[in-house]
């Protein structure tokens, strides 16, 4: 799987960040050195390590080195909260945990656990002065990863190819603390799928892929550094994707002759408003494919994007359980048909009814998959694994239909899963968290249709009599125990939840009920500041009492690029104004928003 890394010209760039090129020589050396570290720590093929490192060069080197040695990587989100991290660790029993210092401080793991702390060499201050005052790392404790790595003797040869049935990595999907599923992908699964991806995307050693997705997600990690290493090409990760970086993102691809750009539909949606003068961003000979992954690509978005940028968008259907993809709508010849997920490549599909009988062409049923890339099992959970497979077929949980030409279209979801901006959220996990509050009698998290993010996570809550709990307070509580992306965007306080005869909440009826609830009617007092603060409180899910006119995107916890867009659109709706591109980019403080609205209202 990693032959292309071992045989690559050491001067060739493996990873290009904004300021620095990490060569294949660097990666080769890292693999030998990290392999030496594994040896010194007695981490052997078949052992497991937990990785939660945010630094991209180091995380990718660690992941690839573990793959090379047949060591199972348990991928953890550095942002995950302590209960989830503890659950992941206790369920996988890793030989070592390598994680960022801040993450470990946050997780507060028992001291008995074997831990290596990753801490980048610190620079005091930022900018030039900071660099002049650069402090040498003085304290290096015994469990410091970089110190241990330095001390370890690099191995002389690259490790031999691991057995295909060894588990390459485990990713825990969203779910309640108790039932989150550990998707176990073997070396064989991964190798088979990487070969498919390389073929479908038409990649070779000269490819330059840009993937800005998170490394703790399969689409970021596997279709980023791992695919680049497998192909022997260059992975570009110049910055984190954010709304203020959209123009830079488009220019970066153009300037660096990026051949393959990986995006999630929410990114395409965010890019569209900034398209003016950037329409030629994908018009250069080296460009090969713009690949949308992780979530359903809405037909209207697909149309708009292709019309504006004059570039075909490839759409990939896949799950964490299938490494990355399974069905591909482009760029491989013969697989592209707009609005579909294309055709299966290197795998078989069946569309079945509830009795597992294959259904007629054009009819909707559950999509089942079979192929070398399908996961081995859910980690240490034979019951869940059994439920996920039937007669050797993996049940995707997605409803689909196939036309006479073999093109498959996704029609809906059988499993209760929310995909918001490409992030999978198990609503039960959110519901469980909300229900911990003693003032709440019932709760249900659901996904509501959303133009930008596909779905938006909200929750309906029934309070116990006499409780004065507010939605914002509930959200604040969620923020304490859930990752930011799993915190509901909005809480609806309702009198009751619609239930069927079995007592289960009827999700469709609940969605309809919530759709009928008008957004909270903000009273236009004529005082822009108060209204802007209320909208900011709602958009960023922060109690209004904690916001002031002096707050900026740096000081408000929930003010990320996604929430920023919602803030802007809410302001536009409420004040009946329209912000131009530059205003959207530069509106990074409450004061600026207020002033701009005052100006627009004359």
């Amino acid at each position, binding site marked *: 799987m990693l032959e292309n890394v071992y045989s690559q010209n050491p001067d060739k760039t493996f990873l290009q960040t*904004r*300021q620095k*090129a990490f060569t294949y020589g660097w990666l080769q050396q890292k693999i030998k050195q990290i392999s030496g570290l594994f040896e010194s720590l007695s981490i052997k093929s078949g052992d497991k390590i937990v990785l939660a490192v945010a630094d991209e060069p180091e995380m990718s080197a660690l992941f690839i080195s573990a793959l090379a040695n047949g060591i199972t990587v348990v991928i953890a989100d550095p942002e995950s909260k302590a209960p989830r991290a503890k659950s992941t660790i206790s369920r996988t029993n890793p030989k070592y945990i390598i994680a960022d210092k801040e993450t470990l401080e946050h997780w507060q793991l028992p001291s008995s656990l074997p831990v290596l702390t990753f801490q980048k060499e610190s620079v005091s201050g930022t900018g030039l002065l900071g660099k002049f005052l650069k402090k040498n790392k003085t304290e290096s404790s015994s469990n410091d990863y970089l110190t241990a790595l330095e001390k370890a003797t690099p191995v002389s040869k690259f490790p031999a190819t691991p057995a295909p049935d060894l588990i390459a990595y485990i990713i825990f999907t969203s779910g309640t603390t108790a039932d989150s599923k550990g998707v176990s992908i073997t070396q064989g699964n991964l190798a088979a799928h990487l070969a498919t991806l390389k073929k479908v995307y038409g990649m070779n050693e000269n490819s330059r892929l840009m993937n800005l997705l998170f490394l703790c997600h399969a689409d970021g990690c596997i279709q980023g550094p791992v695919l680049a290493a497998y192909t022997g090409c260059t992975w570009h990760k110049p910055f984190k994707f954010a709304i203020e970086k959209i*123009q*830079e993102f488009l*220019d*970066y691809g*153009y*300037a*660096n*002759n990026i051949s393959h750009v990986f995006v999630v539909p929410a990114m395409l949606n965010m890019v569209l408003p900034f398209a003016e003068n950037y329409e030629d961003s994908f018009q250069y000979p080296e460009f090969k494919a713009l690949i949308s992954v992780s979530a359903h690509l809405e037909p209207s978005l697909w149309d708009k994007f292709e019309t504006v940028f004059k570039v075909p968008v490839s759409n990939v259907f896949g799950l964490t359980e299938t490494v990355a993809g399974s069905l591909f709508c482009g760029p491989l010849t013969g697989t592209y048909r707009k609005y579909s997920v294309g055709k299966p490549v290197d795998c078989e599909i069946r569309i079945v009814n509830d009795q597992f009988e294959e259904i007629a062409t054009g009819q909707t049923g559950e999509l089942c998959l079979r192929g070398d890339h399908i996961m081995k099992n859910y980690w240490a959970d034979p019951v869940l694994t059994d439920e996920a497979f039937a007669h050797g077929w993996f049940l995707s949980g997605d409803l689909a239909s196939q036309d006479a030409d073999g093109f498959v279209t996704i029609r809906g979801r059988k499993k209760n899963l929310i995909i918001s901006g490409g992030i999978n959220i198990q609503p039960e996990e959110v519901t469980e968290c909300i229900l911990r509050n003693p003032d709440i009698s019932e709760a249900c998290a659901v996904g509501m249709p959303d133009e930008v993010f596909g779905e938006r996570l909200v929750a309906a809550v029934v309070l116990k009599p006499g409780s004065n709990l507010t939605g914002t307070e509930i959200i604040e509580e969620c923020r304490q125990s859930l990752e930011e992306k799993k915190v509901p965007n909005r809480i609806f306080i309702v009198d009751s939840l619609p239930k069927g005869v079995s007592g289960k909440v009827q999700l469709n009826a609940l969605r309809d009920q919530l759709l009928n609830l008008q957004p909270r009617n903000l009273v236009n007092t004529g005082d822009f500041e108060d209204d802007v603060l209320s909208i900011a409180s709602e958009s960023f899910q922060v109690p209004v009492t904690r916001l002031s006119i002096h707050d900026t995107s740096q000081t408000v916890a929930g003010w990320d690029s996604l929430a920023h867009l919602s803030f802007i659109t809410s302001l536009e709706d409420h004040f009946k104004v329209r912000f131009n591109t*530059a*205003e959207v*980019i*530069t*509106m990074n403080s409450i004061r*600026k928003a207020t*002033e*701009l609205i005052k100006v627009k209202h004359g």
Partner: protein
Amino acid sequence: MRLQALFLAVILFTSPLIWRVPNYWKANIMAAITFILLAWIAPTSVLLMLSVAFLQWLVWKYDFIKSGRIKVIVTVFLPLLPLLVYKWKFATGQWLIPLGLSYYAFRQIHVAFECYKAEMQKPALLSYFQYLLFLPVILIGPIHRMPDFQRSLRRMKWNASQYSDGLERILYGLVKIDFLGNFLFSTQLTQVARGVSSHALRLYLEVIAFTGNTYFQFAGFSDLAIGAGLVWGIRVMENFNAPFMATNMQDFWRRWHISLSSWCRDYVFQPLAALSRNRWIALISAMLVLALWHEISLRYIVWGTVQAVLILLTVYSRKKTPAVSGFINGHPVGRWIGRIWVFHLFAFSCIFIGSENIASLGTNFKHIFH
């Protein structure tokens, strides 16, 4: 020209280095080369440019002026003050204008306005210096814009045909300056004019020679700047778009010295139009600023006013005589009549700036029309 040759040589010799280093470093290296060269040949100028930029940056960075309006006034006034002082002292023959001052002061004012309008983010000091210290446009413009410069930096990639386009533009520039401007219009046509006995015809030919030479010199230097920019990988805005193909004076001013005329449109006309709600006041003010940018003198005030009046008449005639206007701007024959008319209008308006004083101006016109 000697300085321009030196600048060109530096740009050509350093271009392999620019293309060799990673993208991230390119702008820093271009700025460093410009800084070293300027510090060597025009230390006052570079000191003035960077000090003003630094002061503006302090105002943006530390936000000690809370009112947006006062902030824009201060950040516009900072580059305007040395510009006015030097232009005034130059007009009275006391001082020399620091190299490139007229151009970088206008660039600094552009950034101040854009920050005020929130059309661009307040620049980081390094980015601001990178923008100001861009050698190809230091001497004679264009007054390129910072967002365009930054975008061009971000999109920079080696492109052999772009590099050769750059060299080609430099060649065109040299031909325009030396052959068409200096030789053909300035030397040959002037000599022909001197041999003509009729006063009127002689002056007419001299006017044509002056106008032709002015255009080719200016367009040629713009070509050099654009070509040098391309050699370094940066696309600089076009400054001339076949101005004598314009069929009316309004169109002419969209094609002549575009970077200056669009600057005046954005930072004089538009704010004044918004403030006064009177586009004529705004137009006359914009044309006066455009004129005084060249030199603070009575003859330029007259010239600027004449240009404004010509534009006003164009707009007025379009309303009052739509048939004539339609013929001039729409019919193939009419368009040529329009072009000849625009050329002569502009050429004769240049008599105002070619004349030392009002008395000689009167004499010049008298010679032509009698």
